[in-house]
């Protein structure tokens, strides 16, 4: 079977921008194809991760972005899975290349979240929850994750201060990431004293609302070599849906994420200890703790130690470094683009293009992208350098 690789990446600025979604995409695509032939000369299919039509009153994003890329008469579609839409788009592209259907597929994601203020984003995101019970109870994204956090703090030794330190760590990483929405260091007091959003979560426990687009070109290894592009192998891919309602899931053993990660490891033929870096879905600080455990990096109840250097974590932790980009928390979280921004970070880390934030000797990365609340749907990818492969 053909070997799918990432051959190029690009992103728009992240945060509050003056560009609509399609124009954010044009910026991301422009970076990805800066040193390549035009998309029309290479790309055979397009998948677009996009959360909600309520931001721009626009569906048909597959058609629209294919057109804006100069691609006509190719298969193109929007992929929907709330915040996991980006990684679902990547997964479709990877499968198309692996099964020999296409040699080059564009996986992209876009979200124009600032179009109607915080209330518009709150309302759009609430559509990800079960309509019959959850939405009618007035639940929101932060309050859903607060239910997980409350339970996690109840069951483990973790404290609100530990969760704050995860935010501090990720802001520190973002300070060295020129793409980050919030490239600045913060301290623990700033997190702990920030406004309550849904206790125990405070403003600085939450990823921001922001605009953004990302583009990832998936090709065969041969085509990437012909294009003279640095390539990162997509060695494994897994996805898993769980119940839509949080109440009906295990709220501290994130089973869907565990299955998505294990599927990706198995497909890649690696053990969890081989993972050097991980971009996990830290939409809220508690997510990084929960996903460190689900991914197998940390023993149950110790995932909150992700902010500590490897030598100071509990026995049984691997040496993985989490969220070198700054994570959703500080790099930014333009919903439909997030899964592809994770892939972009891994591509830069594994091709020696991560600058000041490079994790030394990183050869293998895990990406975990979630949609809905926690593991309503999770997508996992294992990316490796050509040498490790």
């Amino acid at each position: 079977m053909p070997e799918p690789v990432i051959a190029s990446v690009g992103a728009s600025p992240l945060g509050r921008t003056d560009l609509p979604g399609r124009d954010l995409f044009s910026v991301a695509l422009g970076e990805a194809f800066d040193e390549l032939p035009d998309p029309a000369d290479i790309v055979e299919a397009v998948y677009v991760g996009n959360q909600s039509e309520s931001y721009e009153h626009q569906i048909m994003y597959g058609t629209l972005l294919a057109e804006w890329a100069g691609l006509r008469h190719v298969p193109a579609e929007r992929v929907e899975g709330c915040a996991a839409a980006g990684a679902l788009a990547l997964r479709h592209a990877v499968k198309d290349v692996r099964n020999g259907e296409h040699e080059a597929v564009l996986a992209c994601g876009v979200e124009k979240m600032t179009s109607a203020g915080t209330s518009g984003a709150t309302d759009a995101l609430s559509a990800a929850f079960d309509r019959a019970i959850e939405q009618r109870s007035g639940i929101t994204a932060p309050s859903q994750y607060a239910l997980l956090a409350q339970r996690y703090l109840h069951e483990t030794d973790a404290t609100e201060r530990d969760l704050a330190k995860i935010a501090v760590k990720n802001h520190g990483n973002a300070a060295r990431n020129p793409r980050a929405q919030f490239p600045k260091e913060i301290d623990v007091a700033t997190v702990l004293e920030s406004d309550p959003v849904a206790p125990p979560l405070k403003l600085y426990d939450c990823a921001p609302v922001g605009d953004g687009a990302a583009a990832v070109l998936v090709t065969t290894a041969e085509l990437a070599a012909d294009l003279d592009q640095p390539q990162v192998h997509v060695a494994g891919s897994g996805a898993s849906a769980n119940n839509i309602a949080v109440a009906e899931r295990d709220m501290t053993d994130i089973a869907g994420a565990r299955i998505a990660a294990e599927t990706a490891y198995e497909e890649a033929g690696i053990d969890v200890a081989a993972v050097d870096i991980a971009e996990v879905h830290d939409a809220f600080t508690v997510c990084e703790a929960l996903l460190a455990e689900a991914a197998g990096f940390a023993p149950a109840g110790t995932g909150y130690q992700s902010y500590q250097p490897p030598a100071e974590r509990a026995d049984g932790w691997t040496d993985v470094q989490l969220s070198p980009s700054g994570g959703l928390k500080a790099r930014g979280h333009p919903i439909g683009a997030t899964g592809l921004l994770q892939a972009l970070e891994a591509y830069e880390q594994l091709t020696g293009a991560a600058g000041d934030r490079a994790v030394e000797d990183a050869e293998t990365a895990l990406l975990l992208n979630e949609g809905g609340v926690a593991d309503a749907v999770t997508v996992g990818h294992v990316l490796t350098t050509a040498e490790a492969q």
Partner: protein
Amino acid sequence: MTDGDLDATDPRTLPGFFDALADGELLGGVCADCGQVLLPPRPACYACGSRAVDVEPQSPEGQIFSYTEVHTPPPAFAADAPYTVAVVELADGGRLLGRVAADYADVTIGDAVELTVREPTATEQEIALDYEHDWPVHVFEPR
């Protein structure tokens, strides 16, 4: 499979479930094969995949499993904020999310609560879809 004749009177559909809830009866699906409780009832068990799902009345009594307070509500609920929401573990084993009629500071994990039912407010009616207008809203009251 034998669900081809499901209609809106069947409690395994949302209209059937909410009709019963409006009369004060909380119905759950109970898997005949593994015992999993499904709230609301539905045609298949998520735990084992069985489609042998019985519909049985569920105790309205339960305990707080987790809880929080919404400070930044969806626009339609702005006037209610802040309000307390919780996941409640019911006495018969099912878990259900809902509002709690108590201040956040007065709630803790393990507290005893009871499910009650009220008609939707005028504001809730405004955002209801056509088929939702008669659906009641459940609220957990401290016991």
